[in-house]
């Protein structure tokens, strides 16, 4: 099987080719074409094929990560969107939860008011209402009003419509009928329904999710179709799959219908790539740590699997989004993070970033503020002549100048200020990891830190040390982990249903019936995507809480039909998760099943472990020895530090820190007291000296 993964970043489009039979893996980079990223994607694949003599028509799958939809939301330039909703509730998406985003601010913006996805003039209401507990019809759907609303929106220049009715997650009939009527009146519109996008309770969040889907829909649909066509014209017969926020991929046609699935997919491929790399060294409990120029993405995998973020924690551009997403935490800390003294005199680093342009002062492109990269350079940890494989020379004097000015104001030496920048940014990163582990009852000392992205390997060892994490894994190509991650995915679709079933009164037949119906629906979708039944798998789970609580915990359910004993086991599992998460249980409280979920998986071919490279030797790998500054207890010391070329390192031979390992797409720092080893899985393993 021949696979190609393509990840479109802000500057570069990364391409990975993998032949799963010969275990040949190849990488390539081309500039991103921001006006139409499809051009860069097609050019990159074509170039890679030409360079390595590969037949384009032999490629089976192209897996692609895109942020087209994400950017449309963040830049608020989606399509003109309309809403048809229940009469009496025109402004649910405007009032939201009536909470201000900021406590202490008069001049703040309220995203859903200042940047509405559908303006009030395009929010029309029709008489209809269904009610709990089972979605009984209280007011019939006014079909004439729906047709009238459709015509009015069309005439007003709207291009996409979300139909959003209260309680549609209990009974979607009105929404579906209304969508049908809109389609009859106006076949060319992009139409979706709130229960079709995410059949879960909480109307503001569900309606907003449907609006986001409509808002980005026409643009993403056009992009996917253009790319698919372009690949065909370039002689590729491959299937196109697109990365989704849930850590799986979907077919191009599914994404064209439900673009909302991609909105939080940006960091997903990266963490999957990190987890795959950890797996090459048989590491299964992982904290992935993807550090770029502006931000760091943190993911937690237990036994190789990532948790899903709870539906109440997923946001984009200030809007809530009810879409399954790998639980990834992003903080504003990266190589470009700016160090400064704020108005109160405190020493801060980030979240403001110099980005790629102008970038750190060291880039010599006009950056005037000291950044994390400048600090690394001053301390000798980055080699000015070997950054990006020597493609970009770094300007040490520029870094000294900007960090020196900061040092002067702090009353510190240049090195102490530079080291302070790293201490603060590392503490920010460690706090973020702590908030994802310790706060959820996970002990970071039971995990391995997989550090990647351009800047992850620079900081991994020190962040791990601050948290007591015993081991750091640096993947073979830390800078292209996202493109690699695309080749580790499966087709993955989610179904969800809100149940609101309680304790002793749980109706097992209804639960089993709903689970079976959801499974069948997913099986049909996978079959339509051409997945053979033997390559499918289904996983069940539920969102449970104590009756009266407002937040649910995700509990795995057995694959088989539920009986009383199985249900008791599920409840016990909930209690143990509750204890782990909160440190407390309420043994006398009834438990409520809020949602049930089924995930349908269509297994796909994946990138294989790379063939072992030739073994090197330390002597051959040694590039030079140069002074680097490190903190030893309370002292800052400058030590003679060997610099090695990664590709020439011998396998399984320990190297004591301090040491620096250089490669084209990243630099690994091995501080004093840490030992480095290149292992057979192609990773570098860093551990404290014993």
């Amino acid at each position, binding site marked *: 099987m021949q696979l190609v993964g393509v990840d479109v970043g802000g500057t570069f489009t990364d391409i990975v080719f993998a032949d799963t039979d010969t275990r040949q893996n190849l990488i390539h980079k081309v500039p991103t074409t921001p006006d139409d990223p499809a051009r860069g994607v097609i050019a990159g694949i074509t170039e890679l094929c030409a360079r390595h003599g590969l037949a384009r028509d032999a490629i089976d799958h192209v897996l692609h990560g895109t942020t087209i939809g994400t950017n449309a939301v963040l830049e608020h330039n989606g399509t003109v969107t309309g809403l048809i909703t229940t009469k*009496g*509730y*025109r*402004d*649910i998406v*405007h*009032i939201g*939860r*009536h*909470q*201000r985003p*900021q*406590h*202490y*601010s*008069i*001049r*703040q*913006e*309220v995203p859903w*008011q*200042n940047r509405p996805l559908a*303006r*009030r003039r395009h929010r029309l209401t029709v008489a209809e209402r269904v*009610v*709990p*507990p089972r979605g009984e019809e209280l007011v019939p759907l006014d079909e004439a009003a729906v047709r009238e609303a459709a015509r009015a929106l069309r005439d007003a220049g709207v291009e996409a419509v979300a139909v959003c009715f*209260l*309680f549609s997650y209990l009974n979607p009939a009105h929404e579906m009928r209304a969508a049908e009527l809109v389609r009859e009146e106006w076949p060319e519109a992009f139409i979706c329904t709130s229960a079709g996008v995410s059949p879960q*309770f*909480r*109307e503001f969040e569900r309606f907003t999710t449907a609006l986001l889907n409509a808002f980005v829909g026409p643009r993403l649909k056009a992009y996917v179709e253009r790319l698919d066509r372009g690949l065909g014209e370039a002689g590729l017969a491959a299937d196109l799959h697109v990365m989704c926020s849930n850590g799986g991929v979907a077919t191009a046609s599914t994404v064209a219908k439900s673009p909302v699935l991609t909105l939080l997919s940006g960091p997903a491929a990266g963490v999957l790539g990190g987890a795959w790399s950890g797996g090459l060294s048989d590491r299964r409990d992982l904290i992935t740590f993807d550090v770029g120029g502006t931000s760091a993405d943190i993911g937690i995998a237990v036994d190789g699997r990532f948790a899903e973020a709870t539906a109440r924690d997923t946001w984009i551009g200030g809007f809530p989004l009810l879409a399954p997403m790998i639980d990834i935490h992003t903080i504003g800390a990266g190589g470009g993070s700016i160090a400064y003294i704020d*108005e*109160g*005199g*405190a*020493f*801060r680093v980030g979240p403001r970033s110099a980005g790629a342009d102008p970038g750190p002062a060291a880039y010599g492109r006009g950056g005037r503020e000291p950044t994390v990269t400048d600090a690394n350079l001053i301390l000798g940890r980055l080699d000015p002549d070997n950054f990006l494989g020597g493609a970009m020379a770094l300007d040490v004097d520029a870094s000294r100048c900007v960090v020196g000015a900061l040092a002067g104001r*702090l009353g510190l030496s240049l090195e102490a200020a530079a080291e*302070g920048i790293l*201490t*603060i940014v590392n*503490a920010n990163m460690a706090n973020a990891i*702590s*908030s994802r582990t*310790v*706060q959820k009852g996970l002990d970071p000392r039971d995990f391995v830190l997989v550090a990647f992205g351009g800047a992850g390997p620079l900081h991994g060892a020190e962040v791990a040390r601050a948290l007591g994490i015993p081991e750091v894994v640096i993947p073979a190509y830390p800078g292209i982990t996202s493109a690699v991650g695309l080749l580790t995915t499966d087709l993955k679709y989610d179904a969800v249903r809100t149940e*609101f079933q309680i304790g002793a009164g749980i109706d097992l037949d209804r639960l089993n019936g709903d689970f079976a119906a959801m499974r069948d629906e997913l099986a049909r979708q996978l079959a339509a995507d051409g997945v053979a039944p033997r390559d499918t798998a289904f996983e069940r789970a539920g969102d449970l809480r*104590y009756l*009266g*609580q*407002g*937040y649910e915990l995700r509990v795995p359910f057995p694959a088989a039909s539920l009986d009383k004993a199985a249900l008791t086991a599920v409840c016990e599992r909930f209690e143990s998760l509750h204890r782990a*998460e*909160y*440190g*407390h249980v*309420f043994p*006398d*409280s009834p438990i409520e099943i809020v949602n049930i979920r089924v995930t349908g998986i269509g297994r796909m071919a994946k990138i294989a472990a790379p063939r072992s490279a030739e073994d090197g030797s330390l002597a051959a790998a040694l590039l030079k020895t140069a002074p680097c500054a490190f903190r030893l207890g309370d002292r800052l010391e400058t030590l003679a530090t060997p610099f090695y070329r990664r590709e020439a390192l011998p396998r399984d031979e320990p190297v004591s820190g301090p040491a620096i390992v250089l490669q084209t797409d990243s630099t690994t720092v091995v501080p004093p007291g840490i030992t480095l080893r290149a292992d057979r899985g192609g990773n570098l393993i860093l551990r404290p000296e014993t």
Partner: protein
Amino acid sequence: MPETIDSITASVIQGALENIAVEMGHKLMRMSYSSIIRESEDFGAALVDAEGRGLAESAQSTPLQSGPIPGYVRGILKTLAARGDGVRPGDVIMHNDAYAGASHGPDVGFAVPVFHDGNLVAFAATTAHHLDIGALSPGSCGIVDAIDAFAEGLQFKAIKVYDRGARNDAVWQLLRDNIRVSDLVVGDMEAQIAAARIGAERLAALIVRHGYRRFRAACGAVMDYAERLMRQAITALPDGEYRAETRIDGFADSPDPTKRHLPIVATVKVKGDEIKVDLTGTAPQVPDRPINMPFEGTVDVAVWLTIRSVLLDTAVRGHIPVNDGLLRPIKITAPPGTLANPVFPAPTIARFCTGNAVADTVMKALAQAVPGQVSAGIGNLKVIAFSGMREIGHWVHMEIFEGSYGGRNGTDGMDAVDTLYANTRNNPIEDIETHLPLRVSRYELREKACGAGEWRGGLGSVREFEYLVDGGASVEADGHEFAPWAFSGGAQGRPAELHFLRRDGSAQPLPSKVPHMHVEAGDRFVCIGPAGGGYGDPLRRNPALVRDDVADGVVSAAAAQEEYGVVLLASGEVDAARTERLRREMEAARGC
């Protein structure tokens, strides 16, 4: 000799303190049962040092809950000392004494002490608004006819619910026996304790990691830092005295003039890097009705909230740590025996809206000093306690109804949001109707009623609740009698309204305070939220924005002409020539 601390360690410890407070808040919110905590987020979590100085608060909790926590701790320490008692490892202390730091009775605090080398060094504490506290009618809002502190429900004055680690079963039994829906309330209290204990554990570990001396020094530096920020912001204000007055409804239907249309007065005195806020002129306390505000726990938080939000606006200044240092440059005074500094046992349980009016009045005063940083008058809030009986006992639900902000320099007011020191969330309709015998029969913006201005006031909301079974309700609100104030040539906003529609079709307007009343199945409350005041001259509003408001149905075409001088064509577009002429005429007419 106090240890000095480097700026790097101070930054690291500050981040760790905030991380702990956030974790406490996160756990409390997600574990708790009643919607007033988990959905409305009416809870607080904070770390406090052994002297009762705030070190950090959780970002997600509402200001009126986290802000008072240091006062709770000081109240606990004082109360215990007066009894000859002290704090020991393993204690968990419950407190809600509105005359010793608590915000008001339903906001029960739980403090867990942190010891290091045998010495008391800090507290981790949580507060939360409880659904019921054993007052005279169901729910803990709308108890507007409580005649004194004893009528407001249970009073906890530094009660050890755990004493040196041993659970005080008698107290817990007392709670279960005297509180309605006690399963929910006790569950929430347990969640509060669990969250506070986690905070205490993490804080103890942080102190061990850094050593107590370094920790102390870092806390000192972090507080000094916040103080410096506030002093710098105050220094930028022109020195002077800025006085403002607003009025609250009080009990508008009372025959007693000392109970209605009561003045709230704030004089903000800026000198150098300090602010004094003097509430002299505010009405005398109402001795037998609970709209009096605890001076510590409500009045102070209302004042700080506004000063902080105007001078160190998060949207402008970014994240600023909240701790004791921010408060040091601000002194607050209010004569004893006034609404703003009542004397025990004057009742205080329904002080919510009075306090928000103080916050609004302080902003009205500050508007004179920093006109570009304020909003025009802000609409006050409303809370209704819905209740009834089921086979299994009471059901109680409290819903907070939104206000709105006045227009701002360069942008319109926020529509239909919680205001000032409150920042709670509504409950999803799909949650309410699933779990309670209520139907939310309407939830929309209030149309064609807003404070005109170059930047118009925010829109109010209209929300209707219908009872599906017989039950009861009580109401605690303000702002029915007085419209939010206008600023700099704008028009004032619109007051709130409340209507009770009976099943038989008869309608009855209600005042803003309604003690517990009987409601029958099919009866409805129609809650109409206030609209914020306008900012700047409406004739200077960009006509395109007026056109948009008309297209969106929130301003009528007639109002566009009469209030804004904007004439629209049949197409909805602006008739530029006629608009210019009309505006000139309207301006000329003003001149005479």
